């Protein structure tokens, strides 16, 4: 805003002197010129295009985050207004001594890593198969990508039915081949992996598309050279092709991890409530439960901030990597 005011004053002067453009090019002392020198020649002129969204995003995204941090430092709970006069880290200490929080954090982490690795592996496998010039390539690509277009609410309901103990298709298949039924949702040791599998089914198609693009970007000569040198297909992929997919891997895993942190929708729809099956509580569900079921706004904000830091610790290195590579 300040720079905008300066702009008006400056151009007022300029009009008196005549010749706006020349004036700016000649003098090197006004604040505008300094700003332009510092940030590029059209910093101020272009501000009307980027400044409004910049301020709006700043207020509604970053302002809200900062506000959330402030609330997490208070003892705000129940109805009324938070008291900002007494700020401390009590809620964070409470989280660390809350076994429910620790369990949820561990589950979040397992979900994050397990889901991402499995999805990348399956996605890569599918991408390589599709890249083998098969027939109906586009059809297969669409089939694999389709689950991603469905909402979590829909897919969670699918899987709730498939995992059903008595009538679920998975247990029916298991019993028909002579195995025992498995309580997919009800066993604390299995449920998280059941969730990982369902999410993997939904997002493997996305990883496939990213990898497919990566594979298509590798020149044919690399395949040919490897073949000429006598590499087997397996060896060719392992030594030549997959190492070149680093960029695809990184960008796909960032997106997948962010989706894993958002698995709240899935767990919520799976049970139709704030309390996921025993063994599948993650930070996102715990946060919402603390906020809306218990009205512990401050505690829930503290969980939110920690979840935010987790997300940032995933995205931050990626941004830095992209910056170093010159992609930004």
């Amino acid at each position: 805003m300040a720079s905008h005011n300066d702009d008006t004053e400056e151009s007022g002067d300029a009009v008196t002197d005549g010749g706006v453009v020349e004036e700016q090019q000649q003098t090197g002392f006004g604040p505008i010129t300094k700003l332009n020198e510092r940030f590029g020649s059209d910093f101020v002129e272009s501000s009307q295009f980027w400044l409004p969204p910049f301020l709006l995003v700043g207020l509604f995204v970053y302002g809200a985050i900062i506000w959330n941090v402030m609330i997490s430092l208070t003892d705000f709970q129940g109805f009324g207004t938070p008291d900002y006069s007494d700020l401390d880290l009590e809620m964070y200490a409470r989280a660390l001594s809350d076994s429910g929080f620790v369990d949820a954090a561990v589950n979040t982490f397992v979900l994050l890593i397990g889901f991402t690795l499995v999805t990348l592996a399956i996605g890569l496998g599918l991408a390589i198969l599709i890249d083998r010039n098969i027939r109906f390539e586009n059809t297969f690509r669409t089939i694999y990508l389709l689950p991603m277009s469905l909402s979590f609410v829909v897919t969670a309901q699918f899987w709730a039915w498939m995992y059903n103990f008595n009538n679920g298709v998975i247990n029916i298949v298991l019993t028909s081949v002579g195995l025992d039924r498995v309580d997919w949702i009800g066993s604390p040791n299995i449920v998280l992996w059941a969730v990982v599998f369902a999410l993997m089914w939904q997002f493997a198609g996305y990883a496939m598309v990213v990898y497919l693009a990566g594979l298509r970007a590798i020149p044919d000569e690399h395949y040919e050279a490897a073949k000429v040198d006598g590499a087997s297909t397996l060896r060719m992929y392992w030594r030549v092709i997959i190492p070149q997919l680093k960029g695809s891997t990184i960008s796909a895993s960032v997106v997948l991890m962010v989706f894993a942190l958002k698995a709240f929708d899935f767990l919520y729809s799976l049970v139709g409530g704030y309390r996921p099956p025993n063994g599948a509580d993650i930070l996102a569900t715990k946060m919402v439960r603390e906020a809306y079921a218990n009205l512990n706004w401050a505690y829930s904000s503290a969980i939110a901030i920690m979840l935010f830091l987790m997300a940032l610790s995933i995205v931050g290195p990626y941004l830095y990597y992209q910056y170093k590579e010159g992609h930004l």
Partner: protein
Amino acid sequence: MTDDSDRLSRRRFVEATGAATLIGLAGCSGDGGGDGGDGGDGGSENTDGSDGSDGGDSSGDPLEVLHGWTGGDGAAAAEALVEAFEEEYPDMEHEFNPIGGGGNQNLDAVVANRLQNNNPPSSFANWPGKNLQRYEGVLGEADSVWEEEGFEDVMVQEAVDLHQYNGAFRAVPLGSHRLNCLFYNTSVVEEAGVDPDSLTSVSALIDALETVATETDAVPMTHGMSGTWTTTQLWASTMLGKEGYDPYMNFIEGSPDEAAVQSAFESVAEILENYINDDASSIGLTESNQNIIEGNAAFIHQGNWAAGAFRNAEDFEYDEDWGFKTYPGSEGMYMLHFDSFLYPSNNPTPEKTDTFMAFAGSEAAQVAFNQYKGSIPTRTDVDMSAFGPYLQETQEDFANAEERPPNLQHGLGVDSETMSTLNDVISSEFSGPYNVEAATSGFIDAVSN
């Protein structure tokens, strides 16, 4: 030069935008639910603004009532309530908004947000008792309604006590469910040769479950524990039935006897380990109840809302196909539950709300609602002829009960935070494998202050 610096600056902007977008993306995901806190705050900012408009609008606003009765008998009951209201007050504009899903969770979340944003409805359905604590500071007084309608004289004493908080009436009761119930499928218990009426202790119940297991193919006791609340309320009934009224009351009042708590957990563990359905942990109340209706199971412990589902089932009649027994050991007691309408302060329609509250406590409303809901009126002067035989018996039990202890899981006995902690304990220690020791110490810690 110009070109260079142009490109440079554009790249900077792209950098900035890219970074903002990505962090924003992460922010959204990491922060999605955290908005709870934010939203809450945003609301309190608006307090003053809405204050002003509220006063002005009060005459023109329609009566707005939020409730969570959307499924099956609940929806029918709510409809009957609205019809009765329209009959009594044909000219009053009203909006009865059902907010279903997740038990009462969605309703609670909507109510919490609206109260926090200082945009309260005229009234909303919830539980009285200790549950009122969580609405500290946002509930108004319904004293005048209670006085004018003479509710104190016609409601049971527990209703009078439990609808007061901080020295004023905060709500009006609409109906009452019973919690210490054991329902059974008549043909299954007959096949097993068990006489349910002879089960007057928890150990007798466990023996009967064993008999069912050996004599029939049916599940001795069907249990749906996809949510933790069913196990918590089973524990509460077992505690009441096995240990008696005083240890139960000591527990909810914050001075628990460890031996009693542990002994109740041991019995519940014995039942859950040996006599429930294999798929218990993945089904809920509805499916569990279906096991009784279809004759796949002998017994179920539930609040008597379960009976509402029995009534709606075809060819499934009280006394012929299904039966009721007070939870063994708790004979002569009626574990209380109330469905009530709470009175938010800063009410958008104070006069209409008073009218509605007076209606909710009236005979017309209680009869209309409860006969469909499967609950009973909280008034003692109601003509029960419109109700079925089961509810008539329940009403007699209610009127003649020696003790009416408040329930543990449905708001009356403990405040919502304690209730939530108890359910955390059930979730982590008592959803299979059943860790009696850890659950006992978790429960003791939760209620002891």
